[in-house]
């Protein structure tokens, strides 16, 4: 029964995604290749002083990304530190500096890890700060991915596009229209949208209750579409005002997956070979399905004392959604760097709880966050191409671009970043006595393997810019706020630096024509190899810590 429901749900989402793959993907490709500017865009370019016909070198592109993001962090930090004097403060005090720092980074890096509780921020901060970053951080991710795709498409070119143009177009042509459409659907589905603030009501039983209102549907739409994940409320998508029914839950899953799963089409379109897009899509899809079904199998089996007593692993899950919608949501949100939740991953069975962790440790590539998923997957593909190229006896090439020492250096460094951040962060938390004291005494509510899992999860979530949390970990301690902040920052921008450098080095190359000796990168064999590379890279690095955490807990 559960399996049938799961397959039906997955099938529904898959069908909707299949129908939108071509139109959305083609639309994204058009957005970033057309030479025509909209009037509103021209006005913006005039204000910020950008010539939309001027393409940037990868260094210039990178500088633009970094400047823009640094300014974003500073603005967001200032907004939070001054919120009590700004309009719509709702009586909230200024956010304390550590949390403000963490939150600013979190939203600029598209992580949306919420060290704060949603209800402690004013509407102004939510709207001008968080929502704006929900759009532009997502647009930045897409822009970087498109820049890499241009690297593959360009020949002997010193440029990879213009960041400001990509940013503006991504926001105004893709994210805004989609969000408006989605918000309308969500409102129809019952998600609240108002500026009511907190309303105190008397209940029938005579008690009083505070009902929080707010512009939820609009923020919800971009939260999912931009794979941001920062909920309006602390309970995120398990809150009935954010996610009222099973249908809205399924719709939100569709929204989360829409752009990440359509980007391969845009990739194929821009490089001029749609089959390449299908191949990347196949890799993402395979990993997505395998992981989702594995999670479902673990949860449906419901091993452990509590689930066996209760009859099902329902702890931490909403009865509105049941096992199936919870599992599907958990899998989707952790495979896309979204991090919004409609159930508490911490309460999953031990092995079930491992899957969201593993999903993030894949490096958020199946299909990953908007943009970030595509460039992460292309890096894996580059490594797969390299090994495959050696195996067929040719200097490896991907889409006609040679994968030489420079390309390998950048790709190798890319795959180094995340493991070092995660393992390093977790190890430091336990290795240095003072930090260990803080983590064990203040942050951890659980001990032993499960406690370890919570810390691994936190660092995996931060370094991969996911933002979801294993509840039970108090992350507002100075060490974790700072360490996770740094992990988010480096986990976002080091890869971007490497990706843009790779884009530059690819764009400068000429294209090698494909011959019978060229390894085709659109066939099932290559798809399989890329899936294998992604799994192996993760498995080999994280097997030991997973053994100490969820495996030790779950293999009873």
């Amino acid at each position, binding site marked *: 029964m559960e399996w049938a429901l799961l397959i039906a749900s997955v099938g529904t989402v898959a069908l909707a995604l299949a129908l939108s793959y071509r139109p959305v993907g083609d639309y994204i490709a058009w957005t970033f290749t057309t030479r025509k500017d909209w009037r509103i865009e021209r006005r913006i370019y005039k204000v910020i002083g950008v010539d939309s016909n001027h393409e940037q070198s990868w260094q210039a592109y990178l500088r633009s990304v970094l400047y823009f993001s640094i300014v974003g962090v500073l603005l967001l930090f200032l907004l939070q530190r001054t919120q009590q004097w700004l309009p719509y403060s709702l009586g909230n005090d200024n956010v304390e500096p550590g949390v403000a720092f963490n939150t600013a980074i979190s939203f600029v890096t598209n992580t949306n890890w919420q060290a704060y509780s949603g209800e402690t921020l004013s509407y102004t901060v939510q709207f001008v700060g968080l929502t704006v970053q929900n759009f532009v951080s997502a647009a930045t991710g897409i822009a970087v991915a498109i820049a890499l795709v241009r690297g593959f498409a360009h020949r002997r070119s010193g440029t990879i596009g213009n960041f400001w143009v990509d940013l503006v177009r991504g926001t105004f042509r893709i994210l805004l229209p989609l969000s408006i459409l989605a918000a309308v659907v969500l409102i129809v589905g019952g998600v609240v949208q108002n500026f009511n603030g907190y309303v105190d009501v008397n209940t029938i039983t005579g008690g009083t209750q505070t009902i929080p209102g707010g512009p939820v549907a609009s923020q919800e739409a971009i939260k999912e579409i931009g794979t941001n994940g920062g909920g309006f409320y602390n309970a995120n998508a398990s809150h009935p005002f954010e996610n009222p029914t099973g249908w809205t839950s399924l719709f939100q899953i569709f929204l989360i997956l829409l752009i990440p799963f359509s980007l391969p089409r845009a990739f194929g379109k821009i490089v001029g070979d749609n089959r390449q897009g299908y191949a990347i899509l196949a890799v993402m899809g395979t990993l997505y399905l395998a992981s989702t079904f594995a999670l479902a199998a673990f949860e449906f089996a419901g091993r452990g004392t509590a689930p066996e007593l209760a009859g099902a692993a329902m702890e931490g899950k909403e009865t509105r959604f049941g096992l199936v919608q919870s599992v599907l949501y958990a899998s989707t949100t952790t495979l896309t760097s979204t991090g919004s939740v409609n159930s508490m991953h911490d309460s999953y069975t031990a092995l079930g709880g491992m899957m969201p962790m593993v999903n993030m440790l894949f490096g958020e590539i199946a299909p990953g966050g908007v943009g970030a998923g595509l460039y992460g997957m292309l890096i894996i593909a580059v490594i797969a191409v390299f090994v495959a190229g050696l195996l067929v006896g040719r200097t490896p090439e991907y889409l006609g671009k040679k994968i030489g020492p420079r390309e390998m250096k950048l790709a190798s460094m890319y795959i180094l970043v995340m493991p070092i951040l995660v393992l390093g962060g977790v*190890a430091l938390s336990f290795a240095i006595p003072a930090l260990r004291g803080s983590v064990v005494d203040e942050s951890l509510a659980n001990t032993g393997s499960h406690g370890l899992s919570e810390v691994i999860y936190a660092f995996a979530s931060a370094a991969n810019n996911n933002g979801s949390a294993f509840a039970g970990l108090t992350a507002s301690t100075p060490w974790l706020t700072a360490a996770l902040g740094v992990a988010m920052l480096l986990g976002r921008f080091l890869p971007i630096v490497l990706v843009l450098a790779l884009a530059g080095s690819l764009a400068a190359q000429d294209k090698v024509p494909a011959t019978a000796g060229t390894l085709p990168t659109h066939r099932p064999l290559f798809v399989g190899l890329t899936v294998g590379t992604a799994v192996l890279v993760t498995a080999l690095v994280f097997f*030991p810590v997973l053994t100490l955490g969820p495996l030790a807990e779950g293999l009873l």
Partner: protein
Amino acid sequence: MSTRTHTPSSPEASKQPAAAAPRKTLAWEHVRAAFPGALRKLDPRAQWRNPVMFIVWVGAALTTLLAITEPFLGGPAPSGGTSVPWSFTWIIAVWLWLTVVFANLAESIAEGRGKAQADTLRKTRTSTTAHRVVSYHPDADASAEEALIEDVSSADLRLGDIVVVSAGELIPGDGDIVWGIASVDESAITGESAPVVRESGGDHSAVTGGTRVLSDRIVVRITSKPGETFVDRMIALVEGAARQRTPNEIALNILLASLSIVFVVVALTLNPIASYPASPASITVLVALLVCLIPTTIGALLSAIGIAGMDRLVQRNVLAMSGRAVEAAGDVTTLLLDKTGTITYGNRRASAFVRLDGIREQELIEAAALSSLADPTPEGKSIVDLARSEGIEVVAQPRGEIVPFTAQTRMSGLDLPDGTQIRKGAGSAITDWLEEEGKRLPSSELAELDEHVERISQSGGTPLVVAVKSANGGRRVLGVVHLKDIVKEGLTERFAELRSMGIRTVMVTGDNPLTAAAIAREAGVDDFLAEATPEQKLAYIRKEQAGGNLVAMTGDGTNDAPALAQADVGVAMNTGTSAAKEAGNMVDLDSDPTKLIDIVAIGKQLLITRGALTTFSIANDIAKYFAIIPAIFMGVFPQLAVLNIMGLHSPASAVLSAVIFNAIVIVFLVPLALRGVKYRPMNASKILGRNLAVYGLGGIITPFLGIWLIDLLVRLIPGF
């Protein structure tokens, strides 16, 4: 005028450079000879260049230190809650050292194979006495017979010196012959005992120092600086001293280094993390885990693979001036092949006799054969052969007067004692000869002849008209011999094979486009370049390269030099000029242009071997994890026994078995690294599928079996 002396190059005939050791992939003597070198390489400074093996070296040193200090610190530390036998650290240390030694051994064996060859080459370099011409006058005294000659050591020769070499003497240095012709024994370099002819001018003027003049006397201008001669470069190459890392090797090294870094991070962070839910592993176990995880298999064999790849070329008598060229050979997408000698046999052959109306076939064939009996050219011989195969035998020694071919008459033939004259030659020459007395031939006969000549030319052949003048003045055109370029056997299949590998073949010829097209069609090449001049060749290469193609070509003449230099892989023939040899990045000592195809295969094989062992090495990690990880933490988490799917006996035996497997697998793969993975020309997908199945899947399964088997033995050690 030049005499091309092709040395035979069938597989049986292709010889090893003179004193090369017998080529078995791996013989015990090779291993024994390599041992001292392997031990010398234990020096950390030698290991530093290879990050993977350097980590193993550091691990081995660390465990040795631990093993020594342990007894004073109360025996081996328990690991992850389990105690280990006292001998554990010692045995692990020994196997880690063995891992390093095995890697060194692989490299030493690979190098050793080149050493023997280098030694013989070095002997040719021993200084000889050179007869230097003190003041050379190229015009007045080209042969330097009157000039003053002084004897100096060959080591003192400078660029541009003129020396005289007489029969029986060694040529003192690389140079070009400026005067004379001589037969030269080049066996010291090529292994080919048949002497070759070298002469001034033309494309065969280059001589190599250390080779011996067998006859005649030549004057040579030295073209190399001391210490930079051809032989010097060869020695450096075969010894691997001049081995530079190729781009691809560098890229692979980067990948391996980054994998190593990741695993160092995994190992370093494991204990702090384990200290919370479990208890830390001992340093020995951590080192063992690290060494098993980093790609030691490929790290250990990488340089051996590279050296062996160069060596495989040397075995085929090809010298690559850089490893880069070998690798580029694997990537070549366009092959420029000279028609003559490469695609077709050097000479045309008679393929048919075409008689004119009213002439008996027998008469034509007899006349053609008679006129060719005294013709020493291969074309002439082929006419006699064809006549014989048609059942017409002519007397071996014709009576009469032989009329040789001259450039003026453009025909050859025989004047019989009875006054009959037989001639064969180009159509216009024969008709001119028949009409020289002013009497025109009947126009019907001319028209018929023209038709045949035209048809044969159209098909790419060469028409040879046969005619007779009898003593009484009767004159008749008998018919036409169809001479044809014969495409070498098996080439069409070879080109199809190349096409399936994604390589385009281009035929280069001086023939007219018509002839070229016909032969190109017959041979099955993808494109041709007719009436090719060196400039056109160069332009063609540039055009191909502009389209992103990698071009390989062979050449021997000085006018080939620009094209050879422009091509990504330029193979100069050893018979060629020094200019050509200087311009190319490979030299084929056998001067066999067909070998280009083998070179491509060797280049591919080199990459495939690297890829196969990398895949194997990484795939091995899965089994090693399943051996070591449960073993480390089973003391604290007994439930991890589920992961011990190999059923290894104890934590200590599991860790040791993994380490032993890791070391031994290197030894088992040395022959593969030296020999190279077998390469079959197929399309890329098929090759990938096959190699992934063998080295990917095999790499996952083999260590499970191997570690399990080793554990069966290890558990017999007391305490394990």
